[in-house]
């Protein structure tokens, strides 16, 4: 006679196959889920790779197109033949609208301005107005973007008063500006005016405010006209920031200047940071915040 089986023995008989089945089911679920996760991750990686490949191909195609465009436009300016003014104006417009962030176009603008002044073309005033309009539009566009990241102020100059001072020039009221928690005092002295080319010769001085952190004074002398774009034509300060002076308005008696200071990261594509600036930025970022 066999031993009498209790409730637990009966339960074991029933549950053993069920347990085996559940274990097999768990293995299957884990396997399926694992494989699904792997598939999802692989799909995401494939998508990311595809996206970066597409982006880099688009970038390459755009770079190649821009290179071809730049070469063909630049050639029209460098060819010794006189060339018709209409094409030159159109080419400069194309260059300015497409490359104003990476090229200093002031020499081309001034060259065309000189050619227009000499040309007997009846339409030369219209051409001059066209290139001036492009320059002002680009300056305004660049200022709009830089003022969002930096600080700016404006000053008016009385040209008759400036000429009366001779070579001593005219001091404009200094202004304290703040960029990235650094305060600096920006002062400007206007030394000379070229009414024909609508240019002002200025001296810019940037220094620490009284009682502020020590910053080496920066001084620079340069000419300012409508063809100086702030993103490209700016003065690098000792702390890596930039200050740009741009002509914002001009009349026979007065001129308005806009002075903008902004972080170096927003300077043009052609402007490369100094190695010590990069190292200092990295150290500042790595340092624990108080």
């Amino acid at each position, binding site marked *: 006679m066999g031993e009498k089986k209790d409730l637990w023995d009966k339960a074991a008989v029933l549950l053993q196959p069920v347990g085996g089945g559940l274990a097999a089911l768990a293995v299957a679920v884990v396997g399926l889920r694992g494989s699904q996760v792997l598939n999802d991750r692989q799909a995401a990686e494939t998508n990311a790779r595809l996206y970066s490949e597409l982006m880099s191909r688009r970038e390459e195609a755009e770079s190649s197109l821009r290179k071809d465009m730049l070469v063909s436009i630049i050639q029209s300016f460098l060819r010794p033949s006189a060339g018709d003014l209409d094409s030159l104006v159109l080419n400069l417009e194309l260059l300015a609208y497409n490359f104003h962030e990476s090229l200093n176009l002031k020499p081309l603008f001034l060259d065309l301005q000189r050619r227009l002044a000499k040309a007997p073309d009846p339409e030369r005033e219209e051409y001059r107005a066209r290139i001036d309009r492009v320059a*002002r539009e680009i300056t305004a566009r660049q200022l709009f973007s830089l003022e969002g990241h930096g600080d700016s*102020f*404006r*000053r008016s100059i009385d040209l008759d008063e400036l000429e009366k001072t001779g070579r001593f020039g005219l001091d404009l009221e200094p202004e304290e500006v703040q960029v990235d928690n650094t305060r600096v005092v920006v002062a400007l002295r206007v030394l000379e005016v070229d009414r024909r080319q609508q240019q002002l010769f200025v001296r810019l001085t940037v220094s620490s405010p009284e009682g502020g952190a020590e910053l080496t004074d920066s001084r620079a002398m340069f000419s300012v006209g409508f063809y100086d774009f702030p993103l490209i034509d700016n003065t690098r300060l000792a702390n890596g920031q930039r200050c740009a002076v741009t002509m914002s*308005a*001009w009349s026979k*008696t007065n001129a308005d200047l806009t002075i903008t200071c902004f972080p170096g990261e927003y300077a043009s594509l052609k402007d490369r940071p100094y190695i010590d600036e990069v190292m200092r930025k990295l150290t500042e970022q790595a340092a624990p915040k108080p």
Partner: protein
Amino acid sequence: MTRRRTQVLAPMGALALGAALFAPFAFAGEIYGRVISGNAAAPAGTTVAAKCADADYPAKPIDAKGAYHIIAGRTGKCTLTITMKGQSATVDVVSYDDPVEADIVLDTRDGKLSARRR
């Protein structure tokens, strides 16, 4: 036929001539900007008036963000008069053929309001 054409074209010609003569003045002399007091927009009720040569432009209130906008209609030196809480201060601005931006900073020293361009 010729008479009718003349009747139609004459007013159009006069209109075109008028537009050509007055176009530079229609867009000239636009001054705009913000009035700032204590690193923020000046309080509601602050007004900006302008005087350019012999022409007066009545005081207009600034908006909630401190912005003002004056169409002076002529170029040259203008004096803006800013009135805040019963006190007034002036600042000189030049108006050009193109619009000109002039942000104004108000400051009170020894109880007296002063204004300067930023």
